[in-house]
């Protein structure tokens, strides 16, 4: 079998790229080692940020705007809403650190402003302002259902003629006579171009064609509660301990706190995470005390040494990378799909993705 483009990785990122390539008329096939969304897509809690490192912010801003239109464009509701995000400090030191950080964000064009505590109390009465020392409010950020986003791209991808191979781990990747041989247990496919969008598993595949990809796993934990009538407007974040709490459009609360460090182990589920998260959640939103936790899981982010993703063509002709999206992948996925799609089909490197070229390592 011959295709124009083979995309390795059936997450929201892989399918976003695959859709953008296939809709421009190229024969495209996606290879997913497990099931769709097995990796970080299905484990992310869904925050769509604009508060990210330097150059990524521009991409995130483009991503946010695209998220608004995706449900209409792709024909599937991604359950995206511009929830906004409240960023809180509970200690004086944290408040000082936030002030510095948010001055820097402001310079980057991020619209995130301090909110007086009386104002917080008035607008978000469920927040326990007694415990807060400072609060910032970013009204542009949003919350998306990561799997709904994935289904949206998958449906659109199918409509433009794309093919998917599930439970199809790419066992070998070789360059032969100017094209690639992509082999799974079931078949070997010849591809003119290959995109590796396999998150934290990208480096082991790239190694087969002699590339070193500096992507490292960072394991975090997340949980979801039973659904209730939506009342929590913005996502609440405490940067000092990685606490995040949001309510989805389906009414469930999703959250995370802390990190487990470097690990590939997807079966981690710690009791200390539940305790830490719960204490933090009721300290900030006391009304959550009676809400029941349904499920906890591990979420593995793919990180890079400089905090920026790897997007673009590699030193191997025709081989592209899209990984290293840390915990802000959902913010930039729509933009990467569009811009990398253009690069793969037309050879045009957009200035927005130029800083993320894999050649920098």
């Amino acid at each position, binding site marked *: 079998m011959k295709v124009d483009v083979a995309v390795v990785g059936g997450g929201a990122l892989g399918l976003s790229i695959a859709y953008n390539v296939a809709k421009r008329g190229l024969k495209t096939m996606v290879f997913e080692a497990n099931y769709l*969304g097995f990796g970080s897509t299905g484990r992310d809690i869904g925050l769509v940020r604009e508060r990210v490192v330097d150059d990524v912010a521009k991409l995130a801003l483009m991503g946010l705007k695209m998220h608004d239109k995706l449900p209409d464009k792709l024909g599937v509701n991604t359950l995206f809403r511009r929830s906004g995000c409240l960023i809180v400090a509970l200690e004086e030191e944290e408040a000082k650190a936030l002030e510095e950080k948010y001055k820097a964000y402001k310079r980057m064009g991020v619209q995130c402003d301090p909110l007086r505590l009386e104002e917080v109390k008035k607008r978000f009465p469920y927040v326990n302002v007694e415990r807060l020392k400072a609060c910032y409010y970013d009204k542009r950020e949003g919350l998306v259902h990561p799997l709904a986003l994935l289904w949206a791209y998958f449906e659109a991808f199918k409509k433009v003629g794309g093919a998917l191979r599930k439970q199809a781990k790419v066992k070998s990747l070789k360059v032969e006579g100017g094209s690639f041989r992509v082999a799974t247990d079931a078949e070997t496919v010849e591809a003119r171009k290959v995109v590796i969008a396999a998150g934290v598993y990208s480096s082991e595949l790239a190694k087969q064609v002699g590339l070193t990809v500096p992507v490292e796993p960072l394991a975090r934990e997340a949980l979801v509660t039973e659904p209730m009538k939506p009342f929590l407007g913005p996502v609440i974040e405490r940067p000092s301990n990685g606490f995040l709490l949001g309510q989805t459009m389906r009414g469930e609360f999703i959250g995370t706190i802390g990190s487990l460090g470097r690990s590939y182990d997807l079966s981690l589920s710690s009791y200390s995470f539940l305790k830490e998260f719960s204490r933090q959640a*009721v300290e900030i939103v006391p009304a959550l005390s009676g809400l029941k936790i349904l499920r906890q899981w591990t979420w593995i982010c793919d990180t890079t040494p400089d905090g920026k993703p790897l997007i673009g063509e590699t030193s191997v002709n025709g081989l592209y990378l899209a990984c290293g999206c840390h915990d802000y992948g959902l913010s930039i996925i729509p933009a990467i799909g569009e811009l990398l799609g253009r690069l793969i089909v037309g050879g045009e490197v957009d200035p927005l993705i130029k800083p993320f070229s894999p050649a920098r390592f």
Partner: protein
Amino acid sequence: MIRMKAKKFICLCHDVTEDDVLKAIEAGYDDLETLKRFTGATTGPCQGKSCMMHLIRILGQKGKLREAKTVVIRPPIDPVPIGIFSGEEG
């Protein structure tokens, strides 16, 4: 006598019917973990205790069952209030 076509609910937490599952399978969401995520069955307060066997049965009837296993079970076994973990409620 005209009879309305009855709905067969296989998931009462998220109101998923047998028909929803069949349509999902036809659309390509045809393995257990994907069906779970696409339909929402097994992700509600019962965490699969009343619906998972139906998903497995329907997949089997459609000849799509690759192996005999359930979705990955995550803690807690039953829903637990946040206040229990935070120490607010005993």
